[in-house]
Structure formats: C-alpha cells, structure tokens
C-alpha cells in the first residue's frame, strides 16, 4: 500500500496534465485537419493565453474565470487574423512549396511572438490569480483544487469543441473541408472564412490551455515551447489530424510521464515524450489511430 499511494498520486497528476495537453493537441489537430498545416506557433498562442489571463486577473482585477474567457476570445481573434495575414497565399497558389512555407512562416511567427513577449513583459515569471486555493481531499490522495478546476474547465472546453465539430453546421462544414477542400468549395462552403475560423479555434484552444495552466506553471515568454513540443509528439502519436488520437494520445502521454517520474527520474519529466516519439516512429510511424481521417 505504501508503494501504491504515491503511484496513484502520480497517475492522477499525469491524467490531469493529460487533459490539458489534450486541449492543446486538439487545437493543433483541428488546424492540421482543416488547413493541412502544422502550426509551429501553437506554443506561443498558449503563452498569449496565459499572459492575457494574467493581465485580466492581476492588472485589471477581474475574476479568474473572466480572465480565461477573455484569453480564449482574444487568442481566437489573433489566430484568425494571423491566418488571414500569413496563410492565405497557400490556397491562392502563390507559393511554390506549401508545406515548407507553412512550416517556416509559423515558426517565424513563433520566434516573433516569443521575443515580442520578452520585449513587452520581460523575462520574469509571473503568476495570475489562481482559480481556487486549498486542497481537495479524496480519501487516500489529495489534489490541489486549482488543478481540479483547471481539468473540469478543460473538459468543458473540449466537450464544447467536440460538440461544435460533430453536431453543428459549422462542424459539418469543417469536416467536409478536412476531407476534400475543392469538393466542399463547389458545394458552397466558404473555405477561406472557415479556414480562418478553424485556425482561430485551434489557437483559442491553445490559449485556453495556457490560461488554465498559468497559475500552476507560472507565466513567462518561453513557457509555450515545452507544451507545444508535447502536442507535436501527441499528434504524431495519435495520427495527425485524428481527434480521437489527439485525446487518447494526450492521456497516454500524461500517464507515461507520470510513470516515468515515479519509476525513473522526476527531472526528466519532459524527456519521456521524446522517448515515446522514437518508439512510435520506429514501430508505428502512422500513429496509433491509422490514417488521417479527421472525423473518427
């Protein structure tokens, strides 16, 4: 029993973090599904979300929940604008090598935002108002209630996104776009506007994850790098563009990390994802959930 309780605590932690990763990876997979673009600035949208919630809760003195909602809304708009400004040449056939262009321009955006934040906010770590303080006692183990709130909100955000994708007209259009851009354009779907919306939604999910985790991990300009890399690993793990894959992949990564922390070494927490990546690339390079069908 002495052995089991800390293991259980680690696993709970892993699952909690896994749900937040899932929110982020879902955003990445959404963008990839619709636009066939990997957003290398994903971590910076996460960072922006965290800073916006910090500004709202600490500087303007608003309730943390309002801070999170503001983060989601603002990052959504920023994401849409960025897509309009930077990614439109891809569909207008103005660039020769689309993959390369998308890779490099989102990476450039990431460098710009990261160093922009460094200039504006400085390199110092900041901490927004936590959602709740205190500890929740669950019998054998106890979890800080701030984290519980974060997970509950993350699940609500994810459920909302899944609802939009699966049940609304917008979601149907997005799924159609992900399957065949040209055919859906012929059917009267406005691919440009919906592309921007998809990018905005994906970015907003990263922003939400950032706002949710900000009180736990603190806010600083390069905070987005590690979570972004984890969501890259997750979408390879769960097959690029697969929504189911992104969610299960995140939970799997959370659990693997907590097991690694428990059995191997806690300081390498962020390293286990890479180990997992190597294994998946060697054994099942297409990921755990097969092809790139988006609606599974």
């Amino acid at each position: 029993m002495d052995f089991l309780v800390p293991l259980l605590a680690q696993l709970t932690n892993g699952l909690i973090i896994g749900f937040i990763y899932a929110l982020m990876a879902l955003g990445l997979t959404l963008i990839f599904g619709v636009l066939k673009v990997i957003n290398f600035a994903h971590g910076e949208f996460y960072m922006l979300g965290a800073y916006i919630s910090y500004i709202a809760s600490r500087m303007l003195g608003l309730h943390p929940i309002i801070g999170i909602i503001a983060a989601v809304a603002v990052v959504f708009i920023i994401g849409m604008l960025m897509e309009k400004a930077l990614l439109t040449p891809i569909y207008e056939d103005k660039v020769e090598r689309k993959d390369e262009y998308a890779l490099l321009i989102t990476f450039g955006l990431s460098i710009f935002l990261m160093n922009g934040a460094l200039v504006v906010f400085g390199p110092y770590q900041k901490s927004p108002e936590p959602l709740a303080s205190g500890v929740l006692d669950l019998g054998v183990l106890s979890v800080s209630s701030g984290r519980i709130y974060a997970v509950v909100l993350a699940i609500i955000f994810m459920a909302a996104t899944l609802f939009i994708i699966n049940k609304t007209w917008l979601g149907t259009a997005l799924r159609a776009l992900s399957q065949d851009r040209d055919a859906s354009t012929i059917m009267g779907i406005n691919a440009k506007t919906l592309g921007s919306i998809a990018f905005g939604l994906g970015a907003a999910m990263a922003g939400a994850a950032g706002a949710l985790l900000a009180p736990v991990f603190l806010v600083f300009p390069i905070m987005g790098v590690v979570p972004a890399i984890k969501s890259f690993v997750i979408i390879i793990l769960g097959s690029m563009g697969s929504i189911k894959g992104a969610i299960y992949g995140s939970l799997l990564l959370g659990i693997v990390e907590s097991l690694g922390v428990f059995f191997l070494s806690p300081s390498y927490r962020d390293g286990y994802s890479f180990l997992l990546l190597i294994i998946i690339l060697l054994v099942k390079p297409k990921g755990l959930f097969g092809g790139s069908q988006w609606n599974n």
Partner: protein
Amino acid sequence: MEQLEKRILAVLLVVALFLPLFVDDYALHIVILACFFIMMASSWNLLAGYSGQVSFAHMALASSGAYTSGLISVHLGIHPVLSILVGAVVAGLVGLFLGVLTLRMKDSYLALTTIAFAEIFRLVISLEYKVTNGKVGLSVPGLFGDITSKLPYYYTAIGLVVLMVFFGIYRLVYSNFGLTVRSIREDEIAASAMGVKVVRHKIIVFTISSAMAGVAGGFLAHYNQLVSPEMTTITQMGMVISMAVIGGLGTFIGPIIGGLSLEIIAEYVKEFGNYHLMIFGLILILVLRFSPQGIAGLITKFHNRKKKKVSTSASTEKEVQK
C-alpha cells in the same frame, strides 16, 4: 547569376583577408561569430533550401558536436583539431539516426521530430551536470592553447568558411548529386519515377549537413572555450533560420550574406536591448510572405534589370545603325 555570385564572394573574401589591418579585436570577434553563423546557415540551407527538408535541430546537432569535442579534449587530452573532427562524426551520426527515423515519412515529420529532439537534447545536457557541467557550461581548451590574440581564430574561421562553404557546399550543390537533390525538392514523385533513390539521398544530405553543423559547433566551442546549453535554444535556431531565409532560401549566396549582415545587425542592436530576435522574426515573416527569395533574390532582380537595360540600349543602337 553564378558569375555575379563569384564576384561578390571574391570581394567579400578580399575584404575579410585584409580586415584585421584596420579594425580592433571586438570587430574581429563579431566576424568570427558571423563565420560560425554563415557555416550554420549555409549547411541548413543545403538541407532546407536545396533538398526541401526543414530541420529545427541544426543548433542541437552543432551543440552535440561541440559537447563531444569538448568532453573528449578535456578528458582524453586530445588536441582540439582532432576532437572537432570526432565531434563532426558524432553530429553526423546523430543526424543519420534522426534521418533514418523520420525521412521515410512526409516532410512535417522531420520538422516535428527535430524540434522535439532539440528541446530534449537541451534538457539532457542541462540536467546531466556531472558530465556537462549543466547550465553553467563546460570550459574546454582553446584551439590555439592560451593565446589571447583573436587573429589565429579569425583566419581559421575564414579558412573554415572557404573550405566548407565556398568549396564544400558549392561543389555539392552544383554537382550531379546536388542536381539530384534539387530535383527531389522540386518534385519528389517525378524524381523517384526517374529512378532517384529519394529517401537515401535525403538521408545523405541530412547527414552531411549535420556533420557540417558539428564542425561549426566544435570550432565555436574551442573559440569561446565554453560550451553551454544556451546554444541549443529554439531562439538560436530561429536566428539561423532567419539568416538563411532572409538571405535567400535555396540560393548559394543568400545564407552567406544573411549570416554576415544579421550577425552584425544583431551585435549593434544588442546595445539597445534584446530586440534583435523580435525584429528578425518579423523580417523573416515579411520575407517569406512577400519576397521568398530574400536578399539574394533582390540582388538577382536588380542585376537582371540592369543587364536588360544595357542589352536593350545596345539593341536600339544596332537598329539605329541599320
């Protein structure tokens, strides 16, 4: 264009050879750093510009070469010249491993895996402080012992750039091999239909460019007499990518001009604060969006326009004579 390229390079080289007569040590230091970045940007361009594979691990590979070389020279007492070569081999092998792992798949897999590798590599070297001395950095012997003068380093840096970039990459790019590699970038399916072994060529290019990064990293380590994880950050990688892209992706001369000019700009902007990377990020986006050929593209355009003007005026003269 090739003639123009050669002329610009010759001018740069002559200026570089006589520069130490006129400037102080600080300026030489900047040029040495610029040489490092020219090697990095050019070898990254060999990968991304010519074969179309975007890697984010170039700095990490350079740093793997630097750490290998540093550790060997510290513990085994081997002269840095030899240990840098060993470092290059190790960097090449790491590149080979990453290449074999990812290059069978689509391009984006390489980008995703290398960015993960770079961060994890940084994590490992910062944490294994018993071996690498952690974030403080490992002090390593200088390439020329304890000399304080920058001159020998300066000429070595210039020599390395000439050897690796002017001869090595130039030969490679304009050889049959280079042609094959460029055909892969243009159209992978068509190239493989013509009998090109696509994956094998990609892996070879990746290995060569990794080994080159290893040499550059090893040189920088034994010049600074320090290797630290700082070199491996994403922002440093952003610096290399900005240099190659702003200079002109897929052109031979672009990364050279980009590396030189951006390093000089960075040094002068640093006096006012840490703005240079933000500015470079912005220019990177603007260049990609509006002028994908970068500075090299602008030079060619300007050159061609001038030539056209000359030729049209010549033809009108002929008509007049008729």
